[in-house]
């Protein structure tokens, strides 16, 4: 029981952090992709 508790508290969500960083990068890619397309249409 004690062992279970400490291993739970030691859980570091490395994969989730990596996922979140990729998620933010995807968001930036979509947004800036549209932004530069807008700039190109405005001569």
């Amino acid at each position: 029981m004690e062992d279970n508790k400490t291993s739970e508290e030691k859980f570091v969500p490395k994969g989730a952090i990596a996922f979140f960083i990729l998620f933010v990068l995807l968001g930036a890619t979509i947004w800036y992709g549209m932004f530069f397309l807008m700039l190109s249409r405005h001569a």
Partner: protein
Amino acid sequence: MKISKPLRNVILFELFFPITLLTLGIYHGLMQTIYRSGLVHSAAEAHLDYYQGLTLHGVINAIVLTTFFAVAFGHAIMAYYLKKEPDIRFARISLIFMVVGTLMAAYAMLSGKASVLYTFYPPLRADPTFYLGAVFLIVGSWIAFWGWIILYRTWRKEHKTDKIPMAVLGNIANFTVWQICTLSVAVEVLVFILPWSMGWTNTINVALCRTLFWFFGHALVYFWLLPSYIMFYTFLPKLAGGKLYSGNAGRFSFMLFIILSIPVGVHHQFGEPGITSGTKLFQTILTFGITLPSFITAFTMAATLEYAGRKRGSKGLFGWMAKLPYLDTKNYMFGYLICGLILFIFGGLTGMVNASYSLNSMVHNTSWVPGHFHMTVAGPVYLAIIGMTLYLTSKLSGKPVRFPNLNIMVPYLWCIGILIFSYGLMSGGLLGEPRRTNLGLTYLNPASSQYRPDWIPSTAFALIGGIIMTLSALCYFITFFGTVFSKRKEEPILEFPDSELLHNEPTIGILNRFAPWVIMMIIVLLLAYIPAIMNISQYIGPGAQPFSPNNPVPMTF
């Protein structure tokens, strides 16, 4: 938990009724992709005009289904987590109002008297029964909420220092926003549109009505979304075989939704007259604020699922993604929820483009917009609704789910269909393809001078996606109605896959009271909308007469 027969029947009916109407809603979804791809060049097929069908599609799928579900799910959550049923009189009166309202609106739409789309922008005029029907439906949902407030306050007196159960917190936050934002559309309809539609007033201030609608209209999408969020935070961890990474993150997210759901409506009006660029910019910044709870949720769900995956023995940075119960027929809610989350990644991120002030000009009213919102309202919202509808119907009527092998495929087929469909719509939108338009008559008609062959690939993608989505829906209807019309095999029970927290989280006082957040909400609302209303009084001129969709000559009474 045992549930009384009266409440059980209210919930079961509120789940069953909209799914029946959804058959028509899905049918006209498919039809739109057929009209728009140029497969037919026609104004109406099978006695349903394109724009009439589009109105039915929006009202049934986005107003009736979502509102009925929110109320039914709300009854179930409040009863289960507070261990006490809400007053049945409120539940029954609420049900009657909502059904009467829906039938009135359905009559108007089906008889061709309300082809104004679910946004019903004046000065297009629908039959008064359409507007009255909408009022009844919405007031019905208020009445359910009032019953829950009474229940909650009783509970609170007896549990002064306890943590509010997460689902209850989310539900009350959701309906608090709903109660406030619907006041605006109630004013729009009762004060302005209804008298004008009956000929008692001559003209109507179009810009003001649009602004009142969008005060309601953006908060509406969070009203749709929050039940799914409740499921993500309270059920998903358990369904995945893990624990919730942070309960406080969830509570904080729900409280943020209280403050920021409403004062952002102007981001639907960037291209309109009557509101200054300063007001539009201010509401852009507020809209950026409301992306925060969704980013928090994205991380928290990933961390929660990672814990569940590692518990099942996954290794490496992303191994946990593979070790989740995607295809377990006894755990089908996991599939419905995870597909919703996958779609919402793209739905939410594309939404940020729409909200970004001048960037909106790239997408406004193009087919990009339905491309975006089919990955949100037709993503996590739709999947959570139909999944939970099946779940609650099965549990509350004691009828095990029929055709579990069909059922497990529903969300995955849907997810694939939506991705193809939305890809088509968004790429078309960037090429200038308009939304809410029967393209088959002109733009996708080789015999027309307006023919746009460059829109063929995008509309073809939307058609293929639409067909796959319809297949998914067919599988769902077979499962749902198959279950409903099967024999009872178990005792009816109200139960949910309730999750545990991963960490010992202290009760944070500010996240356990609604008052400070509601006060903040009202302050921000006033700051955001008083300028908008003042702008309109300065910049807008005369009001408009009513127009039928079929005639450029204004209607007279």
